[in-house]
């Protein structure tokens, strides 16, 4: 399908704007209106959008956490709850922590694990009037002072914390990623654990000495809860700072965003936009990998709708792949999610932008038949989609239900050429609300 029709072009532009609803990012994309005037095939146009987006957010979605290394680490203690700014914190330290190679290697692994599959793009928001972005710029650009500035960051975090926040440590790390300097700001909470060491009892008998520790950090099987990473190239003086934030405690909008806001940033994509991007991209992916297999496509599309309708407050591409996809589709799907910058470990679900698209599944045929089917009809066998005769692209659809009404209806005008991809056409129509 080519975008020649002005009406469809306008609809596509609206769709683009919805994808990038953050105002700071959207401004850079007015130029895409020009692209919309050209006679592009829709798929090509979509790829251009994504590639332009990636170029502008260069490195943000594409950070390779496997190249993260650390040079210096400052740690400061943070009491629980919130404290007014300017209150003294006697847990502030005065020099970077001494690191043997093993210590450095261990912290590096834990940081890589924190960001992998969880990182979300953030961008500076001047309206928050936070001092942290300038501190980060100074530290990653070498004009800052690691000791003094990290203390200030710790104090600001303590001031931004909610009353229910646990005590912990703030870690400020000078490091490198993707071959350039970076800064990591992370908050960790203490954990409990036990150590046992062989010893002798007072009677000289062999035994173990057990010690309980309640101030452990980065223990095996746990992760740093909140961390942000900022590359030098994304933290220049003349531009809005960009970075990536990982947060395992995303249980509610307000709680989740306090750490991001403390960093002086907002998420580039809010939950509703991420949900819509996930839904659209998953739908596109499923269509591509099941092109020759309508029954499998039906199963997958129903699974997507069921997943969107579920009571879970989170979307997890990993779980979706594990539960519903088969064989090589799983890895291909997760790779695609990573390519478009969605954290595969999961993110908050907000279906407000796609509500009308997830109530029922829509089947469209090449000759103009349209079927709207609630997912439960597929689950209980009332809808069956099977392959047609060998050598044809036709499918056999069996729907068992009581007919309550039959009437005339509108529909698309008869076309001389068949649609290249009828589902994409359906997408565009859906975006317009028709």
């Amino acid at each position, binding site marked *: 399908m080519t975008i020649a029709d002005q009406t469809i072009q306008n609809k596509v532009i609206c769709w683009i704007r919805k994808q990038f609803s953050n105002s700071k990012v959207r401004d850079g994309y007015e130029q895409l209106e020009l692209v919309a005037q050209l006679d592009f095939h829709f798929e090509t146009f979509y790829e251009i959008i994504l590639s332009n987006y990636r170029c502008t957010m260069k490195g943000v979605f594409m950070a390779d956490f*496997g190249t993260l290394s650390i040079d210096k680490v400052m740690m400061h203690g943070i009491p629980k709850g919130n404290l007014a700014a300017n209150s003294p914190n006697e847990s502030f330290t005065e020099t970077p922590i001494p690191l043997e*190679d093993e210590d450095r290697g261990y912290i590096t692994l834990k940081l890589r*694990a924190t*960001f*992998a*599959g969880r990182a979300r793009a953030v961008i500076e928001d001047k309206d928050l009037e936070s001092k942290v972005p300038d501190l980060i710029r100074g530290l990653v650009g070498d004009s800052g002072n690691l000791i003094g500035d990290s203390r200030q960051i710790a104090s600001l975090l303590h001031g931004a914390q909610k009353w229910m926040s646990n005590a912990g440590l703030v870690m400020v790390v000078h490091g490198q990623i993707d071959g350039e300097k970076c800064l990591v700001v992370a908050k960790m909470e203490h954990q409990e654990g036990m150590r046992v060491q062989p010893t002798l009892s007072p009677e000289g008998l062999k035994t173990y000495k057990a010690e309980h520790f309640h101030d452990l950090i980065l223990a095996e099987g746990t992760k740093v809860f909140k961390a942000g990473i900022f590359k030098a190239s994304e933290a220049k003086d003349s531009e809005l700072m960009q970075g990536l934030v990982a947060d395992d405690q995303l249980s509610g909008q307000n709680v989740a965003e306090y750490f991001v806001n403390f960093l002086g940033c907002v998420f580039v994509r809010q939950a509703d936009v991420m949900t819509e991007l996930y839904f659209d991209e998953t739908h596109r992916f499923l269509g591509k990998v099941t092109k020759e297999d309508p029954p499998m496509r039906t199963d997958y599309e129903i699974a997507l709708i069921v997943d969107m309708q579920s009571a879970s407050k989170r979307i997890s591409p*990993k*779980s979706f792949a594990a539960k519903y996809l088969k064989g090589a589709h799983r*890895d291909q799907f997760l790779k695609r999610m990573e390519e478009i910058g969605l954290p595969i470990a999961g993110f908050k679900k907000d279906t407000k932008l796609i509500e009308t698209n997830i109530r029922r599944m829509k089947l469209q045929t090449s000759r103009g038949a349209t079927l709207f089917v609630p997912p439960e009809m597929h689950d209980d066998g009332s809808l069956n989609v099977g392959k047609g005769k060998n050598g044809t692209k036709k499918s056999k659809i069996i729907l068992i239900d009581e007919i309550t009404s039959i009437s005339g209806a509108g529909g698309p005008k008869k076309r001389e050429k068949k649609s290249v991809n009828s589902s994409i056409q359906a997408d565009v129509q859906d975006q317009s609300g028709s």
Partner: protein
Amino acid sequence: MSELEAVFERYKREYTCFEQAALELEKLLKEGCARMGLRAEVESRAKTIPSFIKKIYARSYDDPWLEVTDKVGGRIITETLLDRKTAARLFDESTGTTLISVLSMEDKSDGVDPQNLYYPGIHVQGIVPEFFTSDGQPIECEIQLRTKAQDAWAVASHGRIYKGILPLSKRTTRRIYRLSVLTEMFDEEVKTAMDEMCSEPEYEHAVLIRDLETLYLPMTGEPGENMLSLEVLDVLKSLVDVEGREKYFEELKKFVEENSSKISGILSDYGPRSDFANQWAYWLFSQPESLLIFEKVENHAFALSEAVEGTEMEEAFRHLFEAWGKEMASTDI
């Protein structure tokens, strides 16, 4: 000046060109062997001037310049008969990927009466590409394909029978020729042993480990534990297509090259020469199969997670995922 003298003088004048052609031939043969994954010795030479003179005077050639077709010679010496057969494929024009333009290929054992003793080996006559004589003619070469055993016999016998100054008695000639039976028996026994080894269930994995070592050892300088490698590959058997092992290894080589800096960094920080080498939880970094695992983490993370979840190795694999900067996809839903 006699015709032979003219030929000899011409050979002296153009000798440098033949030497260069021999070097080019050796380079091509080595590249071809590497492409086929062949372990073989490769030699080449331009026929020495004294040897050339002796030959044209010893034989009654109608046209000595044209009829001495081994002015440039090459040799591929393989470990086994099977490898020699593989080497012969380099000159099989039906594959469409021959190293050089082939004029003829002759297995010296073809057509020989089985009751007779004979010189073993395959001879290929071809053209060295992009090299020409002073009158614009392409330069021919003779390439010998032999196993090590065959070569040992050929080298010993060549100076005595083929090019001996003194004619040997029938008894001595037979003594030398019957040694060729030993080479034949040696090669056949090696082939039988190889066939038995190939039928072992873990043979393909063992070959893969050997291939992985060629990439891993230059990075770390220390080999892994073979028994551990076999156990790991057994866990990953659903992900490793042993039938397509050669093709996969080429893809893996490309992956390692493209990510060499990252992989070197990780192995330096967590591999056999790091502080983590003595910690059991990080043992996989000291194994050559870690390269294969990195490739799977990058391209088949879910399938890999599924293969190792719930096994005793899960924790060790998790560290490789972390080091690579990816999350292990839990299949626990």
